């Protein structure tokens, strides 16, 4: 029975959620997003002396963006003396763990791909270099909201790569067949969910996933929540604020009543349900069209995209799910060259267009968002030629959101707490309270000042 030993190594290499996502066919499952607004008082390690940006270099880039190699190839062809090598170490939160370990060992990569909510973890561990100087030259390439994702307290820690504003995907064909109207508010969403159950006992309008904390955070953000704020050095944690509780109670009530499904997303079963019409809608983000291509290729042309339902009729707001930035290691000896590459990757139209085409991402740079590469709709949605124009309008309504240095702990607590709440048909509001308690306890344990705790 020695095999269990070897297998656990396999499983580590794959990771749990990421592995399943790979199975679900999403190479670059970009999770989790958002705006970091508050917070200051960060002390950056003293920056190494500026080098010559045109000096020869050999840069290592840890990233998981789909087909990023093809984008990097363009750079390498143009800059033969400044070679960038892509290393696919891991995805998402697992990459962060690897970066932290490598940083401690003194061999962190020059360039680091990180989701926005993971930046505070990197910052508090002193991994990221202060890019404020570089920021001055390219700030105008991004909207204020996007810029706030990587700059806090007057310091820029990374350059935004892509963003994931949330929107609603629905099966236009099945909506027509059942005579359903596209919900504009969450109240209408509930009414449609009940109609779906009445028309087809096997079908659900949507599912609530315990496996995707970033999705939940995005929905909370849309409802007006702001979970973390840093008030002159003291963290104020309000995960169980009124908007989050309202949103959780809404979903929890419908899931426990059987009106909505409570099965996790990104499982083989979810793929099947997205393909065969068991699930009629998916509150997701702009990259969702690419995911659909992987999980439900047979439904091409049957989906349509619209704004998320609103809490108040007449208002327009959304949250972020997914999106990431490029940071530079504070220990990199090739800072100047690395900065040159980061600037090119995230603002040069050639680079952003290549990332759209090859990686299916939605670039953070303004010029990238109007790239000719976005003139045609995603492969799955030929029926919605205005997809990216619609998306750009929705993206403007994204609210702000702040992240804390223990988002990873909060997120893994989310998965366990909500899985249990769904299994036990328990009150989602209570789960939100437990999430708040777990997050605060961890911040305190790590030595952060926490308000009211």
């Amino acid at each position, binding site marked *: *029975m020695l095999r269990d030993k070897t297998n656990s190594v*396999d*499983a580590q290499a794959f990771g749990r959620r990421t592995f399943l996502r790979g199975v679900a066919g999403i190479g670059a499952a970009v999770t989790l997003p958002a705006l970091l607004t508050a917070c200051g008082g960060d002390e950056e390690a003293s920056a190494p002396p500026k080098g010559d940006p045109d000096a020869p270099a050999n840069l290592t880039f840890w990233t998981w963006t789909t087909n990023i190699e093809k984008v990097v190839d363009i750079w390498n062809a143009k800059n033969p003396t400044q070679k960038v090598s892509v290393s696919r170490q891991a995805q998402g939160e697992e990459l962060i763990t690897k970066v932290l370990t490598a940083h401690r060992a003194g061999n962190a990569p020059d360039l680091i791909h990180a989701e926005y909510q993971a930046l505070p973890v990197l910052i508090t561990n002193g991994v990221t270099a202060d890019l404020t100087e570089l920021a001055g030259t390219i700030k105008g390439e991004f909207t204020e909201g996007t810029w706030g994702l990587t700059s806090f307290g007057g310091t820029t820690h990374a350059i935004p790569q892509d963003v994931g504003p949330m929107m609603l995907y629905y099966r236009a064909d099945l909506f027509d067949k059942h005579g359903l109207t596209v919900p504009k508010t969450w109240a209408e969403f509930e009414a449609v969910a009940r109609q779906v159950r009445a028309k087809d006992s096997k079908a659900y309008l949507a599912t609530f996933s315990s496996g995707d904390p970033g999705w939940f955070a995005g929905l909370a953000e849309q409802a007006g929540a702001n979970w973390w704020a840093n008030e002159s050095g003291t963290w104020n944690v309000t995960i169980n604020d009124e908007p989050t509780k309202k949103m959780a109670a809404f979903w929890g009530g419908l899931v426990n009543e059987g009106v909505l499904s409570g099965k*996790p997303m990104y499982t083989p079963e979810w793929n*099947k349900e997205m393909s065969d019409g068991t699930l009629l809608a998916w509150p997701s983000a702009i990259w969702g069209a690419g995911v659909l291509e992987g999980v439900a290729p047979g439904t091409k042309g049957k989906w349509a995209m619209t704004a998320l339902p609103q809490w108040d009729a007449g208002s327009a707001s959304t949250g972020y799910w997914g999106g990431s930035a490029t940071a530079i290691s504070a220990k990199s000896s090739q800072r100047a060259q690395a900065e040159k590459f980061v600037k090119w990757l995230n603002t040069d139209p050639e680079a952003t267009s290549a990332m759209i085409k090859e990686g299916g991402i939605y670039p953070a740079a303004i010029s990238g968002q109007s790239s000719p590469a976005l003139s045609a709709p995603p492969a799955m949605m030929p029926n919605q030629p205005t997809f990216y124009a619609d998306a750009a309008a929705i993206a403007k309504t994204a609210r702000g959101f702040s992240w804390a240095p223990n988002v990873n702990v909060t997120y893994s607590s989310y998965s366990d707490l909500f899985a249990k709440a769904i299994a036990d048909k328990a009150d989602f509001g209570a789960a939100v309270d437990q999430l708040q308690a777990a997050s605060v306890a961890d911040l305190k344990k790590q030595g952060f000042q926490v308000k009211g705790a």
Partner: protein
Amino acid sequence: MTALSTGRRPARRRGGSAPFVLVAPAVVLLVTFLLVPIGYTVYLSLRAARVTGGGFGRRVEQFVGLENYRGVLTDSAYLDGVVRMLGYGAVVVPVMLGLALLFALLLDTPRVRLARTTRIGIFLPYAVPGVIASLLWGFLYLPGLSPIRSVLTSVNLPAPDFLGPSTVFFSVANIGVWGGVGFNMIVLFTALRGIPGEMYDAARVDGASEIQIALRVKIPLITPALVMTAIFSIIATLQVFSEPATLQPMSDSIPSTWVPLMTIYRDAFVNSDIHTAAAASVVLALGTLALSIGVLTLLQRRAFRSDQ
């Protein structure tokens, strides 16, 4: 089995550097790849990243004594995982060894047909990596995909939810049993083959039936092999990880702390808290050691009574 035997060695002759030279490679490997990593784990488990300064603050690694151990031993999720793991072992080990013994004895009876094919068939699951096996079973378990469920529903029988809160434990145990029976069967079958045929002749002359031969002759003679497979199985149980970890994203019934190794994995690789993970690892390793020694002592006393 030789490892378990208590045979005496002749008194060694002293002198020369030969013993040291001969033992050096083993010692060097042991120290480099076992003792040093264990020592480093213990060192890490006594430290933690703590934040200094306001605002975002900066994490600094420092000595915290036994704080991580206190945290682990008072973490109800970890302790629940330990209890679940022990329950898992209590189900998997007897069922797996029972089936392995049964199959080995059946294959060892005279006049059995298709013995080789059957043996390979039973052994084959062991060759399937645990992650693959779990994915494979996951497809059989998932309510919307399960062919087992669709067959049951088509004949109007109630279809169980294999990934429900009360059933998921047995669904995971089933994967462990499925994967482990073959290996243990081969070990026991090999032991059975090593029994001299005269034993059976003598038993048959005395009028023993095949069942009596199995119970009175075969099983007592392969007890050392049974003890060995039991120890291996118990240790494998304490390391159960890939099956529940692979099924975890598919089900709401498996939290990320289902068994201790999953908690350790989460702490180290999701929560970036290598120090708590190190403390939990040390606790689990000590528990495994204690349990293995306990079981070994107990079984040895019973199994090798005649030797002493």
